[in-house]
């Protein structure tokens, strides 16, 4: 109420929202917002798992743990996986816009494919190296790479 009175008294204090000048700039802005919001959901859950949930579950009685997990994890993992997917898809679109802009400035559109291709080759090489280390051992529920890789539960 008080804010409303202030807003009437001082028009320049009124909340206002304007879109940017071009559709392209607006798309970039929307992509940044989506990337950040879904990135927060993803990484927030990741650190909740690593810093809070896993240590707390280790303290619990195994019978209690078995009851809690099926109620808790489908929802948590659903949000975790989906937000990761949205973050990366939106980020890839943002990346390709920058690639296209650089290629246009350089006067050679084929550079988009070259740059993106090399980037993908480097990522694929890295995934192959990491994936072999992080798959569960035969007959084990844990990931072998968790202790030795970059981050647990990465």
């Amino acid at each position, binding site marked *: 109420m008080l804010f409303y009175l202030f807003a009437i008294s001082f028009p320049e204090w009124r909340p206002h929202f304007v879109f940017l000048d071009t559709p392209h700039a607006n798309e970039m802005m929307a992509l940044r917002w989506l990337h950040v919001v879904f990135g927060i959901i993803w990484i927030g859950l990741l650190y909740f798992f690593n810093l809070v949930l896993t240590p707390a579950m280790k303290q619990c009685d195994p019978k209690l743990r078995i009851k809690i997990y099926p109620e808790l994890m489908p929802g948590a993992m659903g949000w975790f996986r989906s937000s990761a997917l949205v973050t990366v898809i939106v980020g890839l679109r943002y990346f390709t816009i920058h690639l296209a802009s650089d*290629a246009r400035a350089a006067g050679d559109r084929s550079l988009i494919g070259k*740059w993106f291709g090399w980037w993908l080759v480097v990522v694929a090489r*890295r995934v192959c190296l990491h994936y072999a280390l992080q798959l569960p051992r035969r007959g084990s529920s844990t990931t072998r790479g968790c202790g030795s890789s970059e981050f647990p539960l990465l």
Partner: protein
Amino acid sequence: MIAASWLVLVLNGGPDVSNAHLAISVGGGLGLVMLLNTWGVVWRVQKRADTWSRLSIKEGVPMPPEAED
């Protein structure tokens, strides 16, 4: 991670390449690896643990010893 970041900068760096492009090359590479890890490693493990828990609750099947790891 450092080696992959260095490699992508060496392969794609140059006078025609913007700072944003190179920064996203490094951060996006990390993000894509994390995404694949989420779907390919963490979720696979989670699905097994979830099946074991449900069987244990509904049908009294004991949890396998590897579930304690």
